[in-house]
């Protein structure tokens, strides 16, 4: 195969990245209309199920190597302080302690994660490595830090008043919003507040580093083994090929685990100094004060519309309560991109607070922005006197409203129709009731990217026993990507999924695979796997053609057999592969660029049905109908699970999850799972989930992503359902019983 370098564009969570990538020539045929795609599109249990149910799945926190040292980190108890005294030597003198590093120490070429001017409660000051966790704890105590406590800011309003911006505020305008607002028949103002949601991946951030003469091996609970490798290599001045990053199994990330994190850097530095393997694992409380959060936002919308409900102008501003790091997540993207609206002005002010860094959390910005804007739209529908779904249909945009570019595919109108049908939308007013329990139904649209893109490489090998091995340079954080890869290869090879092994999560095995994020992973890797498997298929059929003296074009692979199209030949594939001895038939594949001149997006609509107890203020989500347009569905079982997960995290955001910061100390008061509530099995609603639309005709294999889409519309749909139930709108999430009762004036 000839390979060439091409320049491609990919949209990563709203930011366009231009990359040079090596792409192989690809002659893999697309499916013809109506052709069998089995097992693509059939429900397939996870290939990792046995490992996950027997405890043999090895996560980063499980890695134990001979001579392993346990590391621990001294963290500031103050929101802002200067360390005035720190006894590093006393810590070094503690029995069993092998290394102690203090402020400013760290990798030669990278920033130290340790500081003597900690800017938030939880900021790292010093790190130790010891023979045991007990010895490491004793060393932390021996450090006996003293602090000069400084002033701090941990409130969005206060930070905004100070004009202390973490990144520069941005403004975006199209058309003439002032004139359009002045001329609009109807204007409406609406404000919403989104809370700080904590990721709480059950496997905390963790790393095990083993510095060897030949290079650095690092196990990392990461969503991006290649980004992790790049960061570590640069920080320590190592060639990337001398750094091996491994992430065999991973216990969730949800956006909080891109790169190697301070755990990886500190573990590597401590291993470099001691020449022993070092393990550093966050405690739950460390996780919840340092590992990131969904950025809380105060969103204000001014909407101008025609008398019949056509959007004329939207002016929106958002103040985002960033912490000590992060980027300006696209919180007003829904205003810009979901509906046809000629005049738009957006202003985003990301303010700095003395808190841990803001970090991407499943559909960062867009989920909370959809929560606000989709409710403002329902307010408009009420003012116009139009069905909320009809308002959305009326403002539907056939092309990207910002650039005018066509979409590679868009089936949003079908999503509305199908969701309405499944939810019983037409009869929704009959639900409400007038007793203590009120019911309501609300809808919200979903917009996200998810087209994926290069670089992504895959290799498929088949040996003597016809048990294929797929190698991909990605990591599976629990989404089922590895299973989907097996499904895709199975179709080309005619070999059942349960005979296939997928190797992933190791940078030493193969070139770059996509990170797990942005709903990009499967859309990126799927065509590469298919192409690699197709090359192997072609080779097997070529050998079979010689062996059976039938033209390769008259042969096919199915159910573990080589078959002639006329039905006269049926032989097990091992008839051919059995002759290989210890050799392999191997094929490689790479992901080509996305189509030029069009936008690749996912769409959807969710409808929530809620019951509100007006006596206790408790909201129960009874039912969610979720209809999404994600192109070809590779594994409906895994896809449904992704939707369930998104919906549950959306329910958590809307009803119960909120990081609370004590304004007098600037510390997080609910960093444990006793006080920070996440949904349990008792909060599980009935979920009706469907996918509409054909495979995307402009993408190889037609696959779009699904990681983010299901979480995006859930909060807005619940908010609209609560307003429908109560006739009162709640402006600030989470909708706790207290806030519900306050809104009811109880």
């Amino acid at each position, binding site marked *: 195969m000839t390979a060439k370098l091409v320049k491609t564009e990919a949209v990563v969570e709203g930011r366009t990245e231009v990359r040079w990538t090596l792409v192989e020539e690809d002659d893999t045929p697309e499916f013809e209309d109506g052709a069998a795609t089995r097992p693509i599109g059939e429900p397939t249990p*996870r290939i990792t199920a046995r490992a996950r149910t027997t*405890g043999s799945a090895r996560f980063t926190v*499980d890695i134990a190597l001979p001579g392993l040292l346990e590391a621990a980190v001294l963290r500031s108890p103050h929101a802002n302080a200067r360390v005035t005294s720190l006894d590093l030597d006393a810590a070094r003198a503690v029995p069993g302690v092998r290394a102690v590093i203090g402020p400013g120490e760290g990798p030669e070429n990278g920033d130290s994660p340790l500081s003597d001017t900690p800017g938030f409660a939880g900021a790292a000051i010093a790190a130790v490595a010891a023979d045991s966790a007990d010895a490491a704890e004793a060393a932390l105590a021996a450090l006996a830090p003293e602090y000069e406590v400084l002033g701090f800011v941990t409130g969005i309003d206060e930070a905004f008043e100070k004009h202390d911006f973490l990144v520069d505020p941005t403004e975006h305008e199209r058309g003439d919003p002032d004139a359009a607002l002045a001329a609009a028949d109807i204007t409406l103002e609406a404000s919403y507040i989104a809370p700080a949601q904590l990721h709480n991946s*059950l496997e905390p951030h963790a790393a095990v580093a083993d510095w060897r003469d030949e290079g650095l091996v690092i196990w990392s609970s990461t969503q991006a083994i290649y980004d992790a490798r790049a960061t570590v290599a640069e920080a320590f001045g190592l060639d990337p090929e001398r750094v091996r990053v491994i992430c065999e199994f991973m216990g969730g990330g949800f956006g909080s685990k891109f790169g190697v994190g301070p755990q990886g850097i500190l573990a590597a530095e401590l291993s470099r100094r001691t020449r022993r393997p070092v393990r550093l694992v966050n*405690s*739950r409380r460390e996780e919840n004060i340092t590992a990131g959060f969904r950025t809380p936002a105060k969103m204000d919308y001014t909407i101008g519309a025609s008398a019949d409900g056509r959007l004329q102008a939207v002016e929106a501003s958002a103040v985002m309560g960033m912490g000590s790091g992060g980027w300006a997540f696209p919180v007003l993207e829904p205003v810009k991109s979901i509906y046809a609206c000629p005049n738009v002005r957006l202003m985003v002010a990301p303010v700095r607070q003395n808190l841990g860094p803001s970090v991407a959390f499943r559909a960062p910005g867009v989920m909370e922005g959809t929560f606000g804007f989709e409710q403002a739209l329902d307010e408009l529908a009420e003012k116009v006197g139009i069905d909320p779904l009809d308002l959305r249909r009326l403002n539907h945009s056939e092309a990207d409203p910002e650039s005018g570019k066509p979409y590679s595919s868009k089936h949003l109108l079908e999503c509305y129709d199908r969701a309405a049908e499944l939810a019983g939308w037409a009869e929704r007013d009959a639900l409400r009731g007038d007793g203590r329990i009120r019911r309501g139904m609300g809808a919200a649209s979903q917009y996200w990217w998810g087209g994926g893109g290069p670089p992504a490489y895959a290799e498929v090998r088949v040996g003597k026993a016809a048990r294929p091995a797929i190698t991909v340079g990605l990591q599976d954080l629990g989404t089922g990507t590895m299973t989907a890869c097996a499904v895709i290869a199975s179709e080309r090879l005619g070999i059942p999924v349960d005979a296939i092994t997928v190797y992933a999560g190791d940078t030493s095995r193969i070139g770059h695979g996509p990170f797990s994020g942005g709903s990009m992973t499967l859309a990126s890797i799927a065509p590469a796997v298919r192409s690699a498997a197709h090359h192997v298929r072609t080779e097997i059929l070529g050998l079979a053609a010689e062996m059976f003296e039938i033209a390769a074009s008259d042969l096919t692979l199915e159910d573990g057999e080589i078959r002639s199209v006329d039905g006269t030949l049926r032989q097990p594939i091992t008839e051919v592969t059995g002759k290989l001895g210890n050799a392999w038939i191997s094929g490689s594949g790479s992901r080509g660029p996305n189509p030029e001149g069009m936008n690749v997006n996912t769409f959807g609509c969710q409808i929530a049905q809620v019951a509100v107890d007006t006596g206790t203020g408790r909201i129960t989500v009874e039912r969610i109908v979720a209809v999404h347009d994600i192109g070809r569905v590779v594994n409906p079982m895994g896809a449904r699970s992704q939707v369930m997960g998104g919906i549950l995290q959306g329910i958590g955001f809307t009803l119960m999850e909120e990081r609370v910061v004590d304004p007098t100390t600037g510390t997080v008061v609910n960093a444990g799972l006793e006080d920070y509530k996440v949904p*349990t*099995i008792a909060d*599980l609603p009935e979920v009706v989930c469907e996918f509409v639309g054909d495979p995307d005709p402009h993408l190889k294999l037609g696959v779009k992503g699904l990681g983010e889409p299901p979480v995006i519309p859930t909060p807005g749909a619940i908010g609209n359902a609560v307003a429908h139930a109560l006739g009162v709108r709640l402006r600030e999430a989470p909708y706790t019983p207290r806030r519900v009762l306050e809104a009811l004036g109880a």
Partner: protein
Amino acid sequence: MQVRLTINGQPHELDVAPHRALADVLRDDLALTGTKVACGEGTCGTCTVLLDGRPVLSCLTLAGACDGSELQTVEGSTPLLERLRAAFTAHDGFQCGFCTPGQLMSAAALLERTPSPSREEIRVAMAGNLCRCGAYEGIEQAVAAAAEGG
């Protein structure tokens, strides 16, 4: 201190410091890393193991207090556990799998004492096991399917 206990049918004699949690002894001393720790303070259910048939949080259980006990962890194999494994697989009762060992242990304890639980009984018994990926629907269906008559 000396502790004798049976783990998944195998007898063990351990010398453990009195302050050490059962979860740490299982993971670090015995390399039984199937038992996971997600909070370390008894709030998430991830580290659940069966102590004489009862589900306990191994992060809050002192290893030294388990002398003479019979312990079952996710590494074990019983007909019920195998049935649960098959049901969790068929109903996709997990995503990342980090909470799965604890979910399986809580489910096994439930079905031992209540062979045919109602949906409400499943929810009450499993409500202490958090799953951040949100696999609760599959978990509920799997437990129901692994139950008698399921």
